């Protein structure tokens, strides 16, 4: 039985599946070869195996040949063996019965003389992923962990993790984690140590939610002893294992400042590593270690600038992008520190658009008194760029810089020059910007209106730009002689206007114009109202009707409603809340930075970085002795590092009074209600001379209207809580691990409460008023998770710890309470419930 000639150099890209016949053909040939000892049989086998693997690669199901492959696997040729292992690993799961066939030869190979073969066999054995074969795994794994060859031990360590994923119980029964732990501390081979480390990390992280022992084990991974042991050996590890160790160190909570400096000195030279991953991991360690030391933190920024810029320049464009995203994050946090480096962020011709976009944002952020001129000049060059999206983006950037208040008049000139370029997208973008500028700096209206008045509305097609133009026509109709007539012609073409946004603006503009120049506009307004009433769009119809009735009722009232004197907007709300920004910063050196989203927004629950919760607490606790301090260092930190706009925001919490003392979570300005009040507060706090004095009264009025004034806590007399309770996260975590659950109950939330719970911060503030402090929180509508604590006012220090999971769609809260003094927890729960029931009902 001569082996059929292997298809010589068969085109390596097999045509997509006709599949079946080819697979059966392969099966036949394999069967013929199975027992063959003829010389050259191995070569023919190799060719056949290659074909099988190449089918497998392109996605043709070749599992039908499983038994034939196994039959052919009895060979001493290591290349054949490897191919066979690869095949078996791929298909064993769908053929658990056939997989049994492989166990025999794999087990045999596990005792081979050659450590290579032992390792390979062990790896394949663990990769079968067949639950009912687990029993065959334990013995070879145990032997592998004690093997004399470091290669086998390396493979065995990962094998434990594979076993854990197939059957966690078997893994624990065989006590493998303990073996790994001792291996990690004693093995001479650095890669074995590294493998043990990540295996233990993954196992304990997954187990931590189930058992308290596991979470304790997880904590020991962060013990000083282990961290120092690994750090002292850091140069023995290869670059990937170094990343792993550094990632661990970033989570380590140093005991004192000597500790911090020791670690930083030890790792200093890692910043000169050519591998960007090592550098970024080191930077994360530095940033996290120095969170509590403002001046050192700032030095770290200065120190890491150069290595980051070098990395941006040295790798492929993809690598640069990853580094640049991190640089972007740092720039956004501390723009002042980068203000002299602006030239590094100029766009290069070869930059892909995603890089250019990041750079434009950075340029916008770092623009200040000293560099605005150059930056804006550069941005203006991009505005005429052939790359239209980038051109648009640059115009927006110019506008944003103008809104940041530096050098406004020069920029306004530039913007007006854009309008003269007569490119439709340039005009469109610029109009939107001019509108925003006018809302912030009404004093520029004269210059702007002169230019805007010259723009023919026919050249403006994009709805946003058209709406902006119409807004300006309405707002400044007294300064634009043509305004009523332009509006009139626009109203005449009502039916051709597709965007509801534009039609809405048209109605309002016609109204405003009418109040200023009634005789000229009356006809147009009538036409607009009529057209609006007949409009099919609900909002347009409603607004037209509203205006109509308002006018009918009283024209002067209508004027007061539609066109009251406006106050300039001082700060446009930030698109991203500072809480989210902090979250992203905590997740430095991860995908969160690239996506500019915290991880809970893009990962499924089961795949979330398992340290998540402990990170929540861990990060809050970084370098902070008590929660009370947290806020303080945070603020001073921001004062030094953050842009003025953010500093303005920070004015808010400062004025919050004593309630802010025990404040642990960063405030969130995203929710519109809160931002409104804090904004007005900060306006008064900054005492802008241009700001009318009556704002403070307005603030009060708004506060009352929105129900933000915080009432005194009405605690039941049975239990009084310490309003300034302090508990550091480490202690919280420990206590949470030690104490038993004293109450676990569900309670419901009022609909108003659900409505008010747009972000976790809303509830956190509310609870503070009842002397219940929050230590960590997270989640997004509809699911929120909080960890609260409170302290009994009198008597020995006694804490209540609480986990509260709220689902707003079902309006239910799941509460778990643990307490030092379990007898008082009923009272505490009652207090909590009464506080919760008042949430949003003020």
């Amino acid at each position: 039985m001569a082996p059929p000639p292997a298809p010589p150099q068969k085109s390596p890209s097999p045509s997509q599946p006709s599949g079946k016949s080819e697979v059966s053909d392969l099966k036949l040939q394999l069967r013929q070869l199975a027992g063959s000892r003829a010389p050259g049989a191995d070569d023919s086998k190799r060719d056949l195996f290659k074909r099988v693997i190449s089918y497998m690669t392109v996605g043709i199901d070749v599992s039908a040949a499983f038994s034939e492959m196994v039959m052919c696997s009895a060979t001493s040729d290591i290349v054949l063996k490897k191919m066979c292992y690869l095949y078996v690993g791929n298909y064993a799961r769908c053929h658990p019965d056939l997989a049994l066939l492989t166990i025999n030869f794999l087990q045999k190979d596990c005792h081979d003389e050659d450590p290579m073969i032992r390792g390979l066999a062990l790896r394949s054995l663990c990769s079968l992923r067949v639950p009912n074969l687990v029993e065959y795994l334990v013995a070879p794994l145990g032997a592998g962990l004690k093997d004399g060859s470091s290669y086998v031990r390396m493979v065995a360590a990962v094998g434990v993790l594979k076993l854990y994923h197939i059957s966690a119980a078997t893994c624990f029964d065989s006590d493998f984690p303990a073996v790994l732990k001792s291996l990690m501390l004693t093995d001479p081979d650095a890669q074995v140590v590294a493998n043990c480390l990540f295996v233990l990390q993954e196992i304990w992280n997954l187990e931590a939610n189930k058992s308290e022992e596991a979470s304790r084990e997880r904590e020991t991974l962060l013990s000083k002893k282990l961290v120092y042991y690994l750090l002292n050996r850091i140069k023995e590890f290869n670059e990937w294992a170094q990343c792993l160790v550094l990632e661990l160190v970033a989570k380590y909570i140093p005991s004192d400042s000597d500790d911090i400096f020791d670690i930083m000195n030890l790792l200093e030279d890692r910043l000169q590593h050519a591998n960007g991953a090592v550098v970024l991991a080191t930077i994360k360690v530095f940033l996290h270690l120095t969170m509590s030391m403002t001046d050192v933190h700032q030095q770290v920024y200065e120190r890491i600038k150069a290595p980051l810029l070098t990395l941006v320049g040295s790798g492929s464009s993809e690598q640069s992008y990853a580094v640049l995203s991190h640089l972007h994050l740092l720039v956004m946090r501390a723009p002042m520190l980068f203000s002299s480096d602006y030239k590094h962020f100029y766009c290069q011709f070869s930059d892909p658009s995603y890089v250019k976009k990041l750079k434009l944002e950075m340029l916008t952020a770092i623009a200040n008194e000293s560099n605005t001129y150059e930056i804006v000049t550069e941005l203006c060059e991009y505005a005429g760029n052939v790359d239209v999206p980038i051109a648009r983006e640059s115009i927006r950037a110019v506008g944003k810089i103008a809104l940041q208040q530096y050098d406004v008049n020069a920029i306004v000139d530039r913007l007006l020059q854009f309008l003269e370029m007569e490119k439709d997208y340039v005009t469109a973008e610029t109009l939107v910007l001019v509108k925003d500028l006018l809302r912030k700096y009404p004093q520029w209206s004269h210059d702007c209106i002169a230019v805007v008045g010259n723009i023919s509305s026919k050249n403006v097609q994009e709805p946003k730009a058209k709406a902006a133009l119409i807004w300006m026509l309405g707002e400044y109709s007294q300064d634009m002689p043509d305004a009523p007539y332009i509006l009139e012609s626009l109203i005449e073409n009502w039916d051709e206007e597709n965007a509801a946004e534009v039609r809405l603006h048209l109605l309002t503009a016609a109204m405003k114009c009418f109040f200023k120049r009634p005789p000229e506009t009356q006809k147009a307004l009538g036409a607009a109202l009529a057209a609006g009433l007949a409009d099919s769009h609900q909002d347009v119809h409603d607004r037209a009707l509203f205006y109509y009735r308002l006018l009918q009722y009283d024209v002067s009232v209508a004027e007061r409603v539609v066109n009251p004197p406006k106050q300039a907007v001082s700060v446009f709300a930030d698109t991203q809340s500072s809480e989210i920004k902090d979250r992203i910063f905590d997740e430095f050196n991860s995908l969160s930075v690239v996506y500019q989203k915290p991880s809970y927004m893009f990962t499924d629950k089961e795949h979330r970085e398992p340290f998540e919760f402990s990170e929540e607490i861990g990060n809050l606790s970084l370098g902070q002795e008590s929660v009370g301090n947290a806020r303080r260092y945070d603020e001073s930190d921001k004062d030094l590092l953050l842009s003025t706009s953010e500093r303005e925001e920070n004015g808010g919490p400062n004025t919050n009074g004593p309630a802010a003392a025990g404040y642990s979570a960063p405030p969130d300005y995203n929710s519109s209600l809160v931002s409104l009040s804090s904004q007005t507060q900060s306006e008064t706090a900054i005492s802008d001379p241009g700001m009318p004095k009556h704002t403070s009264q307005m603030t009060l009025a708004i506060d009352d209207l929105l129900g933000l004034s915080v009432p005194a806590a009405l605690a039941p007399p049975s239990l009084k809580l310490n309003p300034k309770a302090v508990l550091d996260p480490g202690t919280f975590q420990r206590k949470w691990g030690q104490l038993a659950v004293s109450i676990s109950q569900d309670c419901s939330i009022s609909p108003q409460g659900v409505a008010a719970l747009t972000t976790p911060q809303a509830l956190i503030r509310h609870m503070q008023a009842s002397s219940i402090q929050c230590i960590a929180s997270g989640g997004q509508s509809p699911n929120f998770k909080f960890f609260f604590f409170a302290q009994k006012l009198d008597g020995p220090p006694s804490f209540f710890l609480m986990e509260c999971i709220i689902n707003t769609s079902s309006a239910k809260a799941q509460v778990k309470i643990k307490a030092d003094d379990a007898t008082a927890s009923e009272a505490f729960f009652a207090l909590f419930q009464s506080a919760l029931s008042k949430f949003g009902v003020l």
Partner: protein
Amino acid sequence: MIAQFFVLSQRGDNIVFRDYRGEVSKGSAEIFFRKVKFWKEDEEEEAPPVFNVDGVNYIHVKIAGLFFVTTTRVNVSPSLVLELLQRIARVTKDYLGILNEDSLRKNFVLVYELLDEVIDFGYPQTTSTEVLKSYVFNEPIVIDSTRVPPLGPASIFMQGTKKMPGAAVTKSVIVTEPGGRKREEIFVDIIEKISVTFSSSGYILTSEIDGTIQMKSYLTGSPEIRLALNEDLSIGRNSSSVYDYRSSAGGAVILDDCNFHESVRLDSFDVDRTLSLIPPDGEFAAMNYRTTQEFKPPFRVNALIEEAGQLKAEAIIKIRADFATSVTANTITVQMPVPTYTARVSFELESGAVGQTADFKEGAKRLEWCLKKIVGGSEHTLRAKLTFSQESHGNIAREAGPINMNFTIPMYNASKLQVRYLQIAKKSPSYNPYRWVRYVTQSNSYVARFSTSSFDGTREATQATAISSTSTATSSPLEVVAEGATASLPDPPAPPPPPTTFLGTAVPLLLQLGLSGAIKILGPAATSSSSHHHYLLAYRLHALAVFFTFAADMVLVIYFIACYAGFATPPAGRVMKPLMIAPLAVSFVTVVLGTVLNVVG
């Protein structure tokens, strides 16, 4: 952790597909390819290297026209994965000699073998070519390197493959020569990517060099090597600013920053600028560096576009090679975007031009001028006549450009970083391996903005101020004053001046206003008279502008001297000294620049 790794061809076929954790569905390669191919999000044309679809993160790099992709559900470190992908490609190249679709398809079993060892259950294990040698048993099927098309300009331009033509060593680390013996040799390539932006008036706006010392070692027995760099090399901008003879000091190389491969030991680096290392097998970057030190750009680019009657315009691009005649640049491409309403273009190459082509890419609306080689010291010009399909409104120079150049210059390095010597520890007296040290400079982003044929008066005025403000980057106080004139900044770093110093800001302000006003008045007049004389007029205008600036500066100087002598109140006491010197420096630079401009323009 990494769930899957796969390599896709340009058409989207799987060449290699490895599932490590079984967490992501098998269809991920198809989802990925579709997403990348039809990427149109946020007006962006191109998919970023990292994106998320339904909770699965796709991270990819493009190398040699192939996609190297990983998927994961975990929030991993993006740079770790991207570095790893790049490293996998590099290791594969070390083994296969050449990395392309063909070689990968022929050797996919070997690649699987590598992948098994590089990543285990999603965790990176090792990417060292040397370590992997003991685990890999397949012999590579080496494809004929002569069949690989040479690295044309197109391949350099290909996104995501910052190609290193200097490193085109196409020998596998494990294949022995036909003679049965391995040739002992080591390649050291100093590769520099330069980025330069020329402003519309021809001066350098930004410049940067990103360099790599790349090694590829075929030495056996891991001998130690020593690589000596320039003795006067200094690192760190901050330290150099103490002495501050950086731009004028001829020869001293100052790097902003650098990093090193982990095998490099820096014991004597501080003393004699020598790197010592035991080079691992295969290709690796021993050192990466970056400098923003001024350097002489290899090419001067001048471009002009102007209207030549109705619906017509003429563009002239001039390149001068500013390097030694012994050096030749090759595969030069010059690209110039033209107004979107350009219908036809006719070209006029120099008489007797060899190896030059010019083309109008209608889809992309740009001119492409390719030159096979440019010898140092030579100058080349391209004239193009553009025909428009509609009338241009406004300034056509704003709707065209900027010009971008791509080139490679072997045996040239812009930073002057040199390898003084390369020493290999001798194992025996007869041991004398081949040592190759090569230099190559490549364009990363070489952009020249258009000169607006200088009859746009207002623009010229802004330019004049731009010159003064950029050239005084080191002496900021004046910059602030000069800018204050046009921009009326709130205040310099010092507190706002008291009323008595009103004169201090008012004088230059008025002067500058007067200047730009004069030009604004003259400007439109010049534009409207589109006669044959407009060039001359422009020159005169320019000279006028320069003169005015100079005069303004002189007045400033006198004023400040007066301040110093006590006749007037100084604007802010502690910035006096720089204020004294800066105007002089500025006026000098302005005059020089102005003259240069006039000559060149």
